[in-house]
């Protein structure tokens, strides 16, 4: 069992594996990765329970589909549990293969292009990461005289930094490796302007796979940031306000895009971009409160976005190919779905008592402390987030029913999945300490040291 009182890695597997580069097959969980592991497992369960009703396909195809999803789960769990650079990289890349086939084989009309685009973007990001890993392993062996790719060892590597000028900062060892890491993780998360793959992927992938991609895969990027940023204290200190600013703009940009969206899936995709920007803002703010909030928000966003895409799936199945305006009056026809959707929507706009509030509050408080103006800019996102979410809810659920005929409410398995979502919405919202205590047990969740 995982013991929240202990610091450091638990439940470890540590076997020799690839000693030529100092890599060991080393897995283990600490407070941050156990929360991510829970997210992966819950989301997979949600898909198998909740997405069945709108994912109809012949048995032969369904076998492939389920198999690919399970592979995806394996890859994601591996990446979150990895304690070795090479293992992390392997799982990180491994995830691409099942996602590629899930989008390419089961997606919408433009699926091939979406799959290729997704693959290219993330694979390119990975190249930078591989470069940074190689550099770190090399530096470690030079500084300490033995080969190791273990997180714990590599964390001791000292990288030179110069902040005499911007040129010097970027050109310094730490600056270069830092930028390489940032590129890899920010493309995956994504942060504007690296979000080019997001919309197409989320729209074209089958909804069941979108749930996983949006809820889990993006988190690998933010997880990587939290895991590795501690190695670049100077570069981080030097640039974090800029990245906070970009994240704040991302929050507002995503919200405005969502406001102008024409379809349900598009709106949820943009809302995801906006919410992921909150997570990034928390990471770049750097204090203990903000980082803990960011980890918590990674979990929250995963649960909420999974819930939202499930709801989108249920709506699509009842009224396929609709724009938002074609819906309406669902609250009368599907009252149970309306209630669950309400809870998820409120979580998503961060109402106190739901999970979204705790994460957002910690993140924004941390950002406010780190840089008051940027924090204030990001805080205005609370208004715009409420605007697009409320209009979305009202256009679909309220108003006069836009079409006649029978519409069945959600079935028992859907109900079970949404109940699970709402359970976490309230557990985190009403008793966040149950999660925070685990996150805090991690070795160090503080990136910016107090002056």
């Amino acid at each position, binding site marked *: 069992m995982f013991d929240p009182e202990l610091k450091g890695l638990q439940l470890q597997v540590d076997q020799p594996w690839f000693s030529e580069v100092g890599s060991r097959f080393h897995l283990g969980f600490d407070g941050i990765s156990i929360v991510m592991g829970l997210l992966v497992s819950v989301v997979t369960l949600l898909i198998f329970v909740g997405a069945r009703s709108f994912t109809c396909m012949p048995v032969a195809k369904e076998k492939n589909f389920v198999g690919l999803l399970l592979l995806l789960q394996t890859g994601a769990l591996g990446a979150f549990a990895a304690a070795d650079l090479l293992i992390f990289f392997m799982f990180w890349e491994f995830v691409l293969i099942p996602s590629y086939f899930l989008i390419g084989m089961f997606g919408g009309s433009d699926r091939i292009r979406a799959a290729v685009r997704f693959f290219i*973007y993330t694979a390119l990001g990975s190249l930078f990461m591989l470069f940074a890993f190689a550099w770190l392993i090399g530096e470690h062996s030079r500084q300490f005289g033995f080969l190791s790719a273990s997180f714990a060892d590599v964390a001791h590597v000292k990288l030179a930094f110069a902040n005499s000028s911007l040129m010097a900062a970027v050109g310094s060892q730490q600056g270069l490796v830092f*930028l390489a890491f940032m590129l890899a993780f920010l493309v995956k998360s994504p942060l504007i302007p690296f979000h080019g793959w997001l919309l197409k992927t989320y729209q074209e992938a089958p909804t069941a796979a979108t749930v996983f991609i949006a809820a889990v895969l993006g988190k690998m990027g933010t997880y990587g940031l939290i895991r590795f940023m501690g190695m670049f204290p100077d570069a981080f200190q030097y640039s974090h306000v800029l990245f906070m600013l970009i994240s704040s703009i991302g929050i507002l940009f995503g919200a405005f895009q969502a406001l102008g969206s024409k379809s349900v899936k598009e709106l949820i995709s943009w809302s995801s971009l906006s919410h992921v920007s909150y997570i990034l803002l928390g990471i770049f703010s750097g204090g203990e409160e903000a980082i803990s909030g960011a980890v918590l928000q990674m979990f929250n966003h995963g649960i909420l976005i999974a819930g939202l895409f499930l709801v989108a799936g249920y709506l699509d199945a009842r009224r396929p190919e609709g724009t938002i305006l074609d819906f309406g009056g669902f609250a009368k026809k599907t009252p149970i779905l309306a209630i669950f959707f309400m809870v998820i929507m409120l979580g998503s706009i961060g109402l106190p008592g739901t999970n979204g509030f705790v994460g957002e509050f910690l993140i924004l*408080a941390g950002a406010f402390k780190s840089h008051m103006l940027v924090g204030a800019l990001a805080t205005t996102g609370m208004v715009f987030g*409420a605007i697009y979410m409320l209009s979305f809810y009202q256009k679909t659920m*309220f108003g006069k029913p836009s079409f006649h005929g029978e519409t069945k409410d959600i079935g028992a398995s859907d109900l079970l999945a949404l109940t699970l979502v709402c359970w976490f919405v309230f557990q985190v919202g009403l008793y966040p300490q149950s999660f925070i205590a685990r996150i805090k047990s991690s070795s160090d969740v503080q990136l910016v040291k107090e002056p």
Partner: protein
Amino acid sequence: MEHTSYLPLWLLALPLIGFLLNAVLYPLAAGGNQNVPRALAGITASASIGSVFILGLVALGDLIQGDVIVTKAYEWLNVGVFKVSLDLVLDRLSIVMVLIISGVGSLIHVYSMGYMEHEEGVGRFFAYLNLFCFSMLMLVLSDNLLFLFFGWEGVGLCSFLLIGYWYDQEANCAAAQKAFIVNRVGDVCFVMGLFILLWYFSTLSLSGMAGLVAAANPQVLQMACLLLFLGATGKSAQFPLFVWLPDAMAGPTPVSALIHAATMVTAGVYLIVRMGFMFSLSPDILFMIANVGCITVLLGGFIALQQNDIKKVLAYSTISQLGFMFVAVGVGAYKTAIFHLMTHAFFKALLFLGSGSVIHAMDGEQDMRKMGGLRLKLPKTYATMMVGAGALMGLPLLSGFFSKDAILFAAHSLPGGATYLWWGGLFGALLTGIYTTRLMKMTFFGTLRSSVVPHESKAIMTTPLVILAVLSAVAGFFSFPEGLGEILGVPIPAYLEHWLSPLLQAKEIGEFGFLGELGATLVATGVSLLGLTIGLVLFAKSSDFPIGKKLLEGKFYVDELYGALIVRPILRMGGALSALFEFVVQRVAEGLKLLAQSTASELRGIQTGDMQGSIVILVGAVVLFIAIFFIW
């Protein structure tokens, strides 16, 4: 003396249980059927809030003996300096609020059982009402600003849900959304205020901060107070964020009475009084509050002159009366503000419920131009509303007379006050007299101007009216001005003022220069009677105010102004950003594709067009990113 008990927790738990029964358990027991028996839903909800009132009376007994009741429920969050526990405090101020909320709340719950008798699925309605009471009680009982914010947002949510209760009407949904979003604008400021306090004091506990403010940097306090006050202008519908309240009248009338008159909208006043220890150290902000209050008094009063929807008149009247409360807190008269909060809760709830009874009798008609002569058809509603109207106008010896008079007196005589605030308040009182007379005249006098056959409401609706009418009549004696009592030789103690004094130390009696206390009272009385007379003369024949009809009917075009300056630009920005994004991405992709095609024609075989464009965009972004890094 502090003593620990679970009583405050029960005050919160009871309405929550009522909510869960109506929202979850009954529908489940009825097999997923939403139509829970009407009586069961109503009685459950009324019983749960009624027992809060009884428990509140029990607690009052404890408090009289000088205790403060404290509950430490659980540690909600503990990370870094950020430690928040659910601590509830029942002290002299919160018990007053608890009794107002649960007392008026119980009456309105009972009334609703009659008012909602023709509606389907009232389980949802009563569930929301209970959830509202839970949130409101959380707001007044919490010792921690974060949990106060829980209640703050919770009442906003319930307001949203109840305004949009009839959600198949587009207009109701729009009003609900407007209310939520305007409130959110205030809430953003509120949250930023919390951030400042959190980082400065390392705590959000009110009792913790009270011990630290004396040594604090006044500029930090000022900033925090300003932001919290901006939050309060949203919730309490003050200038410039008052625009949501009139639209909120789209909800069922009992909701308007409970949420949009008696309780929720007073949350901003409560917040400032509760945090008086901090606001008192920021005299500039207090001065601003008094001025904003004064502007709101006049704004609400003017617009109410020319509204024809009976509920809209009352809505603008509420805005105006809330303005009086803000004037009171602004000049430092916290106890007086709470006094007016209480009397206003009684008479405004009465007026709204009375108007509900009228609307009920008129088959849903809200336009006063189609009413008239109802005093004969609805004698009980008429009689009780007359008391309410008298109290609102401030006719002598009714409750509003004492509380409004006390505010006017404080606005002039306290060091934080100013003569022009007194003049403004007096003018506001004059307007109150005029529009109230108009309302009563158009509704109850003359002849009926429609073909409906009105009928008096049932006892379940008129009994709460009678109780509220009695309270509206006598509540003034809860805090009878002692100075006046001495002059007149009637020594009635100012109970409420004495009750609150240990908690809110501020001295609230000043010297009234040229008139003296009796003179000031006489002037205020004269102004109320003048308003009544002007109203009677002006509206003897017509229902239109003679000056600036268009401007008043258009509500000074504030909504249109906000629409043109804020709302539409934001909505357009959403659309425009999408379009711009599409355009830029398309052009960049095409341009780079052309570039790539011309420079690498030998690779044409594997080009998939868009894909290559994407790569180039990615690389371009990298370059841009590094460029930003350099420039910065």
